[in-house]
């Protein structure tokens, strides 16, 4: 079925078109929306596009980085200042998907996809969105909890604070096929250290619930402690708390619960 394509010069016009039409979807890199059209998704009757340079801007020089929603994973990988995001960007798709898929689109990618968003959740990213009535910033956790209701808003950019060191941010995607494959589970941990103790730990999990979630019990086990064997074991044993994984072709819910603690332990102890 043919759809109407509306192309706008700037993001705010596109956001207006998106918010006024329930059957409109924003086309980013195409890896979600074109796939839905190819599968005959009749809920989409309008495609909205914006050719706004602001959506593809990267600000990566300072302590806080901002990525336009339309920035592709290939561009993240080409940016030396974004080295801390290279592991999550590289874990997505093959080269063609990384040339197409965008940071903004990944926020909407359902499990087993959305690996980059796991990293952003651990990094406590802020999502700038524009609805029909103006723009606002939403913490990523709130954004993800209300993701179904975000359909009428346009994501403009994501921003986060650069981790203090490469040790302070860790990422691990478990896939059956290497180097490319859908996620069995995905883990990211931000572990700021103050005076030898962890302060403000954030652990994010992908494919352990309908959206990416934080492993809050594991975070509590780390808080205020040094990253020693006993602390890591306590965090790993708390990893399943609050999770609700489902079965899919890549793994069963049971399997995901069995392995999440194992991989969290390896992530925290710096094992390959």
């Amino acid at each position, binding site marked *: 079925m043919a759809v*109407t*394509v509306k192309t706008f010069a700037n993001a705010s016009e596109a956001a207006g078109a998106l918010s006024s039409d329930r059957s409109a979807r924003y086309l980013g890199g*195409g890896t979600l929306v074109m*796939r839905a*059209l*190819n599968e005959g998704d009749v809920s989409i009757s309008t*495609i909205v596009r914006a050719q706004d340079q602001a959506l593809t801007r990267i600000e990566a020089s300072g302590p806080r980085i901002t990525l336009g929603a339309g920035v592709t994973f290939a561009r993240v990988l080409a940016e030396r200042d974004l080295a801390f995001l290279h592991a999550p960007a590289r874990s997505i798709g093959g*080269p*063609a998907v990384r040339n*197409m898929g965008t940071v903004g689109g990944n926020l909407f990618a359902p499990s087993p996809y959305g690996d980059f968003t796991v990293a952003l959740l651990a990094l406590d990213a802020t999502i700038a969105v524009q609805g029909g009535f103006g723009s606002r910033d939403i913490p990523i956790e709130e954004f993800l909890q209300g993701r179904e209701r975000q359909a009428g808003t346009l994501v403009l950019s994501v921003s986060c604070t650069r981790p203090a060191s490469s040790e302070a941010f860790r990422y691990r995607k478990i896939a059956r096929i290497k180097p490319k494959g859908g996620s069995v589970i995905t883990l990211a941990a931000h572990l700021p250290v103050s005076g030898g103790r962890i302060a403000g730990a954030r652990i994010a999990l992908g494919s352990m619930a309908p959206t990416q979630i934080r492993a809050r019990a594991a975070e509590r086990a780390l808080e205020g402690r040094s990253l020693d064997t006993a602390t890591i074991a306590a965090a790993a044993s708390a990893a399943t708390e609050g999770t609700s994984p489902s079965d899919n072709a890549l793994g069963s819910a049971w399997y995901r619960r069995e392995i999440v603690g194992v991989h969290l332990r390896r992530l925290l102890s710096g094992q390959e």
Partner: protein
Amino acid sequence: MTKIPLQFRHNGRDVAIFVDGGTNLLVALRELIGDITPKFGCGQGGCGTCSVLIDGELHLSCLTLAETVSGRSIETLDGMKQGPNLHPLQRAFADNFAAQCGYCTPGMLMAAKALLDRNPSPSRAEVVEAISGNICRCTGYEPIINAILAAAGGRVSA
């Protein structure tokens, strides 16, 4: 539904077509231009056999909205051979028995070309990474990797 006029470069030649709203580039190439070298595999971005180069960058044509390539340059396998001569990659695929059923071959060749255009002497790991979005269900990956390395090393019989 009104048709949308669309112009772009296809293997060095200017083309002009009319597409329906929502038409993907793969359908436009195969059904409207008659270039059947990019194949339809999954329609989901999982298999890579529809891979083409857009302004030299590897893209999946089935996930590309046709009208987004307006004014851009598309390369497909159909434009790879140089006159009557096979491209060195095509020659290497033939010499190294890199095609079994052949369905993945157009995408593999475009992914390999995207790699060698940027990195003329890749490592084996870089070749594996470059074709990681392309599935060969005959599982003939080793000869494909060897063919790409052979083409890069110039060890190709004329």
